[in-house]
């Protein structure tokens, strides 16, 4: 369809206008609002003890949840693509659940499982605190970000096929050597793409972590929870400052996604 100039401009106006009002202006607003009163106040808020603690805790979530979901993701993708099993449709369906389930429901599910009267409540009685502390928040982060590496690795594995792997095995490579020298290098950009998405999701998760953390200042607050608390306490400068940090991380994510997309296509 070669749109005539009038309808082409009409479509541009509609599409880009919508995008501008919904995405572009809000993005610019974050920067403008944060520095409205100079660089001092937002910087103070973000570098306050609570702010720094929130940043550290967010990074801790990434350091624990991302490697676990990456190892799981690669293993699960190999299983789904390279091995026919009756379990595959089940695994395939369960993998997608975290995409479709509300973060609040995910938070509630952990709250009920580990809370008083839950099936795993005995852990608390043994002195292993899950809820309202870091382990619960890690579990929430793992849950919400579980599908990304699997989903990004599966199509790449399907595409590369098994010719090279078979050649390697014919030449006497064992399964681990084949994986390390042939499979992993061919899927690395897909995996990396998944890792970027996982990291972004973990950094930004709010709903699930809210329910299990209790959002205690300086204790169980990640950056997104810090944003909400600051806003609720009428410290909007602090909220914007932390938001800007998160927005910058989001922009880095977008940049990384595009870079990896290009590498993957190349």
């Amino acid at each position, binding site marked *: 369809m070669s749109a005539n100039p009038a309808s082409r401009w009409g479509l541009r106006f509609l599409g880009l206008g919508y995008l501008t009002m919904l995405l572009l202006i809000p993005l610019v607003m974050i920067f403008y609002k944060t520095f409205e009163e100079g660089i001092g106040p937002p910087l103070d808020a973000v570098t306050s003890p609570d702010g720094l603690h929130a940043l550290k805790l967010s990074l801790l979530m990434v350091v624990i949840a991302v490697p676990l979901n990456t190892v799981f993701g690669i293993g699960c993708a190999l299983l789904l693509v390279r091995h026919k099993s009756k379990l595959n449709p089940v695994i395939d369906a369960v993998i997608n659940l975290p995409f479709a389930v509300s*973060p609040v429901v995910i938070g509630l599910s952990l709250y009920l499982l580990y809370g008083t009267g839950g099936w795993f409540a005995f852990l608390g009685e043994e002195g292993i605190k899950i809820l309202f502390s870091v382990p619960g928040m890690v579990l929430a982060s793992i849950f919400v970000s579980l599908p990304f590496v699997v989903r990004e690795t599966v199509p790449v594995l399907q595409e590369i096929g098994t*010719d090279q792997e078979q050649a390697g095995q014919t030449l006497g490579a064992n399964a681990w050597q084949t994986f390390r020298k042939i499979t992993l290098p061919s899927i690395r950009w897909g995996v990396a793409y998944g890792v970027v998405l996982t990291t972004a999701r973990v950094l930004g998760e709010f709903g699930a972590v809210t329910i299990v953390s209790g959002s205690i200042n300086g204790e169980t607050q990640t950056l997104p929870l810090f944003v909400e608390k600051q806003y609720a306490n009428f410290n909007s400068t602090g909220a914007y400052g932390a938001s800007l940090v998160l927005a910058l991380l989001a922009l880095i994510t977008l940049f990384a996604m595009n870079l990896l997309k290009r590498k993957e296509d190349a």
Partner: protein
Amino acid sequence: MEAHPANLPAPSQHRAGIRLPGLGVGFGGGMVMLYLSLMVLLPLAAVASEAFSLGLGHFWEQVTSPLAKKSLELTVICSLIVVVVNGFFGTILAWLLVRDKFPGKSIINAVIDLPFALPTIVASLILLTLYGADSPLGIDLAFTRTAIVVALCFVTLPFVVRAVQPLLLEMDREMEAAAASLGAGNFTIFRRIIFPNLLPGLAAGVALAFARALGEFGSVLLFAGGNPDTTVSSVFIRNQVESGNEVGAAAVSVVLLAASLLLLASVSLIQRWAIRHDRGGTDFLPTVAPDAAGGPK
């Protein structure tokens, strides 16, 4: 008329001949199931168990209590509106990104994914600033139902664009040229040729966006708040947890969960239908549906 590669190579469908990696398949499969059960299935089972812990009658009472019912209705209606709006604008944006040329196109293409990368609470704060009481544009939507729709439009925008875009890229433009040479106008070409070809992607994107909208929490929280008229189901669940009504929270969660499962199932059906349609006759279906359910791509 700009030249575009009409056909991208379709991903090849190799079947596995060998076993990878070193761990036994049984062991690997066991580990995968264990991880999934511990991290996902057991927690969700705990919700279902809690919801029905006081019997089916009590579950139904909780779901149909005035506030719960109101929140569910509000959530569904807002999500439906959002899906229609984003279905419309998302298709236009996908068309612009594939068929049009304008300066800054690659930046626009990258920015589409922003809602996937930006934390929802930040989205909520920014939308509140832009369309709240101190709006620099003079548009105050804060704490209204419109605010819910705007917030949900923001977070679900990429779904439709990213589902329609690849289909538009792969579409055979000769069909359109043929139709045009036979005298079909632009609207006819769109309605009779382009739209039917985009339909599977559009449907899958819409279903995923709908699932996301039904459960969305963070982006709605600050912007639309939780006054009696703007309490969506996720906020309602949070409120029930805070006031100690865990059964009520779990009951509404089960309704949302069931909706998620239905939507996921419909996405995979759409996908299978599309694959079969494209490959007419081959029964070479992969056991794993390729990406479309895979969220951001």
